[in-house]
């Protein structure tokens, strides 16, 4: 099979993995080396595919042959699909040549399981070792850990990769048992905890000794499929909060279930991918990581699912109207972050600017505040933009507006002159 056919098959087989981030590494180029993963702390997108997703890493499976039979997966053993496998050489050559042309930030390597988890992991290790050692490659490498691979291999992979991920796949143990019968919960959580500890240990060592080796300097992430099993957002976000706290995950990715294997009685049928829900989960995830929200503030047993109509912060604000209105000139940074329509940057700018003079409501768009959403929740020197505590009215207004403008349009309309 020629390389073009392999690439088509193994890129298409890898495309369902949501993660493509190339962020957070501090791997610098070496003398006469190729690549630099440290220079873009936020990652770099090189292109956008026709599905609107950013292309940053060359995302490939080593092979889509697999001994397992996970129900939701296109590559499951029992599917009759074209199969292919790269050689180590081919993958190294593709990565280097794409990188040299600035097509990509690096490689995201994953694989179906062939023979055994260790056998597969060993192949992935060979690829990244060749890249790092023979080619002095210092671009970004993300490797997916194969559940069930031995600790020694995981550790060695971590010494060459920038980011590791072990995919949770499904947000509960029951889900996993039903849909991924070959994967045990321990095969996922144990390596995750192990990687978390290793990352911490290597970081501590580096604090003492600057030249200490790197171990997955961009941390670890995971992914779960949303909508293939019945868990609520409350269950999901609670679990995610624990992952961030306990295993110190850098990112959790959510992937709307796409019915790749129709007619399976274990899976929901006739659904379109729950993209709106996926999007709301990402927004809720941001509230957890950057806005100091707790999971049980965003969803709870009375409201186990995220509001698909409104963003989670606005939805929280409407349920907690007693915190509002907030005075833009008075409340501290943490409280500013709780106001719908106020982002991290706008909150910082507000705090910086009000040291010079009291702000007026008309100043706010300059700081990037989305007044369309913020207007019901703020005051400024006792002045309201719109005085109401009728949450049903506010909801209706916001929904009516969101059908006429798309979200974020206000920011784009802000022009200079």
């Amino acid at each position: 099979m020629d390389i073009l056919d392999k690439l088509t098959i193994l890129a298409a087989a890898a495309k369902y993995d949501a993660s493509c981030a190339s962020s957070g590494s501090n791997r610098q180029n070496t003398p006469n080396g190729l690549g630099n993963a440290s220079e873009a702390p936020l990652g770099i997108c090189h292109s956008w595919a026709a599905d609107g997703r950013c292309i940053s890493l060359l995302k490939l499976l080593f092979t889509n042959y697999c001994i397992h039979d996970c129900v939701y997966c296109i590559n499951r053993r029992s599917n009759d699909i074209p199969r292919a496998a790269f050689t180590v050489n081919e993958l190294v050559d593709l990565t280097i040549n794409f990188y040299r042309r600035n097509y990509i930030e690096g490689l995201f390597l994953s694989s179906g399981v062939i023979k055994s988890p260790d056998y597969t992991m060993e192949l992935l290790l060979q690829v990244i070792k060749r890249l790092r050692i023979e080619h002095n490659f210092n671009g970004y490498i993300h490797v997916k850990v194969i559940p069930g691979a031995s600790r020694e291999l995981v550790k060695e992979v971590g010494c060459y990769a920038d980011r590791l991920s072990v995919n949770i796949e499904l947000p509960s143990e029951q889900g996993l048992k039903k849909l991924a019968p070959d994967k045990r919960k321990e095969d996922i959580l144990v390596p995750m905890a192990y990687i978390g500890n290793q990352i911490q240990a290597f970081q501590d060592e580096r604090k003492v000794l600057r030249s200490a080796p790197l171990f997955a300097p961009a941390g670890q992430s995971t992914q779960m499929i949303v909508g293939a099993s019945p868990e609520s957002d409350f269950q999901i976000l609670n679990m995610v909060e624990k992952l961030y706290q306990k295993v110190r995950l850098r990112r959790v990715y959510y992937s709307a279930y796409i019915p790749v294997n129709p007619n399976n009685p274990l899976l929901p049928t006739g659904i379109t991918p729950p993209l709106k829900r996926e999007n709301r989960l990402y927004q809720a995830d941001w509230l957890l990581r950057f806005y100091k929200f707790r999971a049980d503030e965003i969803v709870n047993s009375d409201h186990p699912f995220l509001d698909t109509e409104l963003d989670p912060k606005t939805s929280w604000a409407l349920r907690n109207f007693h915190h509002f209105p907030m005075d833009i000139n008075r409340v501290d940074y943490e409280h500013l972050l709780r106001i719908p329509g106020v982002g991290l940057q706008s909150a910082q700018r507000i705090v910086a600017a009000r040291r010079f003079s009291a702000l007026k409501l008309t100043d706010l768009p300059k700081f990037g505040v989305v007044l369309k959403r913020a207007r019901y929740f703020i005051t400024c020197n006792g002045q309201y933009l719109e005085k109401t505590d009728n949450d049903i009215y506010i909801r209706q207004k916001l929904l009516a507006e969101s059908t006429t403008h798309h979200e974020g349009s206000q920011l784009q309309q802000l022009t200079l002159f």
Partner: protein
Amino acid sequence: MRIYIYDGSFEGLLTAIKQCLTYNGEVSEITTPERYQPDLFSDGMEIKTISEEARKFYRQLEGLSKEITATISYAFLSEQSGVEMLIYEYIKTVFRYGVEVITNMNHPAIYKLYYLRRKVLFEIGRYHGFVRFQQLPNGIFYSPIEPDYNIVQFLAPHFSARFADQRWMIHDIRRGTGIFYDLTHCVYLSWVDRNHPLIRLVLEHPEENALPANIMELKYQRLWKDYFKAIAIQERHNTKVQRQHMPRRYWKHLIEDVEV
């Protein structure tokens, strides 16, 4: 009222602004000879660029804060009409209220220049991703670009750090400027340098269509085009978002076929 006319260079602008600051009347415009339009109420004054003075002024501003010099440099390269007056207003504001004022986004001169700087930085960031090198038969990796702003020199640090082991050139084909990396240094090439022996080869073929390519180069281009198609999920088709991030004007020099 007075219109200041400078030669279009950054040093020229700094020389002019330095003089504006000591002028007692109203500065009505700062412009270049090409754009200069005499008006009845202002006298036009041509400023001779004094490199020494401009550099001294730059260092003075830098001494106040590197933020200031960064903001005015990036904003200047936006080439937006009226940017000279904005820079003048910005510097005037800094001298009037002290350096702390630069964090006050509520001040019109500060925030206008800040947003301009942000737009330029944003495009620089975009090009970290959008540069597409093609390997010429002589081994040099060459990328034509057509940015909105005059940013090519700001791409040098990023690409020099990353592609330290290959010779490459990024060429702004509209402005006729470029940067060339020879394995040790990155040099800025303005149009007048087109006889530079190292780059003759590429500049003689400024049209990418005329670029000579070898079989290996075409093979990787083909693979990349193919990857670009294969990685999209049909069930999530969303070309609206794709276009928001990757506006049409950038497509020309990408290797992948955005429109399929």
